[in-house]
């Protein structure tokens, strides 16, 4: 294995979008991805809350990483995350009460969202403040894109609307199942299927080059 080269800062930002997408690759944060993506508005509100919490806690954790004893680091992270979640919860309730009501307990559940705790443990606690900020923003963008994609599929099919605006005409027959919980599983499963298919195809295209370089190594592995 070659010694690890420092990744360029831009890489920290864009890795969360595709290569390390929190939902599609790390399979984290599936609970909100399944539960609140029944409309685009809910997906956006949830993503905004996650962006706020993730950026806030990543900044704080990477700032205080040297003074947190490693024995109690997880509980410290959780406390920090919970603080930001409470703020996000209150802001949502004050600004968009209707959406807040629909999201229900899922805003409070961001506390136990593995994307956020995972980034603190895996990244913010061992990287600089700047890199942690880029990482948090990148992961939030990846999360938001997935959430909006799911929300779009489910709202358009299940309700014939996008952000509440009718896109399928007045005679559209909505697929009720898509805004119900099974629709979440079907949509996420299909997206994961397509995503891994695209990824595998990309890997297979890249393979001939490496195979020609060292077939014996490949066989031994």
């Amino acid at each position, binding site marked *: 294995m070659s010694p690890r080269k420092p990744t360029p800062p831009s890489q920290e930002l864009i890795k969360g979008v595709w290569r390390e997408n929190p939902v599609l690759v790390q399979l984290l944060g599936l609970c909100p991805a399944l539960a609140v993506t029944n409309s685009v508005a809910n997906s956006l509100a949830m993503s905004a809350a996650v962006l706020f919490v993730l950026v806030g806690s990543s900044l704080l954790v990477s700032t205080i990483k040297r003074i947190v004893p490693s024995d109690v680091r997880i509980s410290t992270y959780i406390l920090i995350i919970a603080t930001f979640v409470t703020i996000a919860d209150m802001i949502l309730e004050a600004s968009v009460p209707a959406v807040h009501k629909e999201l229900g307990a899922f805003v409070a559940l961001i506390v136990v969202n593995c994307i956020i705790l995972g980034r603190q443990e895996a990244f913010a606690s061992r990287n600089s403040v700047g890199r942690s900020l880029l990482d948090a923003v990148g992961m939030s963008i990846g999360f938001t894109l997935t959430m909006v994609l799911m929300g779009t599929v489910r709202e358009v099919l299940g309700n014939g609307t996008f952000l509440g605006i009718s896109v399928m005409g007045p*005679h*559209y*027959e909505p*697929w*009720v*199942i898509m805004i*119900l919980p099974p629709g979440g599983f079907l949509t996420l499963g299909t997206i994961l*299927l397509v995503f891994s298919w695209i990824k595998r195809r990309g890997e297979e295209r890249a393979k001939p080059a490496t195979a020609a370089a060292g077939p014996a190594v490949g066989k031994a592995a």
Partner: protein
Amino acid sequence: MSDARYLVTASPHLRSRDSTPTIMWSVVGSLMPVAAFAVYYFGPSALLVILASVVGAVGTEAAWGKKGAVRDGSAAITGILLGLCLPAGLPLWMAVLGGAFSIGFGKIVFGGLGQNIFNPALLGRAFLQAAFPVALTTWPAVENVPWWSLRGDNFALPLMGSRVDAVTTATPLGLMKFEQVTTPIRDLAFGTTAGSLGETGAVLILLCGGYLALNNYLNWRIPASIFLSVAAFTTVLHLIDGARYPTPQFMLLSGGLMLGAMYMATDMVTSPTTNRGSWIFGVGIGFLVVLIRLWGGLAEGVMYAILIMNALVPFINRATQPRVFGTTRAKAAA
């Protein structure tokens, strides 16, 4: 050396003439009378709906399934069975979608024939029921309709709802549950009632399924145990309160019980592999059917009963493994 009498070959030495395609196409054949009766009874709409779901199922298998999987006939069975549990007036695009879902999400995602956990046709039906609850419970009227007329807006544009108000009616189970009206047994047995395409004509389905059972293409223990448990359970209930609970013969002949018990529960892939397991499986289905029909929110429960028991099949198989020949029970050995 070249003496043919001493030819050495690898096992197996005894072969059955049956193969997957033979069995599957026999099932398709045995479904033909049922489908023909549906067409006779519900008019050209029935033919269109069945064809549409077959197109959806076979088309999906041809597009994404294993190479040559269409030829074994299993996708055709799924399509016909799905068509038979849909109402005649359903827009055709819904039937195509249901067929595609059955094969795509019911079979291919699990790895193709033999790998699926749930009966694909029922999965497609469950999807359609959850997606379009109104269209799936709109039963066309059966009396005073000319044979050649369409029984609903079959040709609704894809993704669009029905534009016509068809004359509709309630199924015998719906009548029993919501209006306390009992349909005569004779009508149920010979199919002159409202319902899904293959829900009517209990006797015909029994005969076609019986043909398969005689050929050992389905395990007779499964339908037998379903019928017995439904009959036993409802007899007890009927004796307790005859005014509230219907007679066992009504429960046996109404709704999708016959089609479900004969063709869907007995799917070789999704039913238990042991005979003892088949009894448990059938009794479970019968019990759940009565439970859902009498106390559930829906009028009909055969679909969910079979799907729930499908999910339990791996456990039933594990619990009913026969003792390996030559070994003793653990207790006796100790």
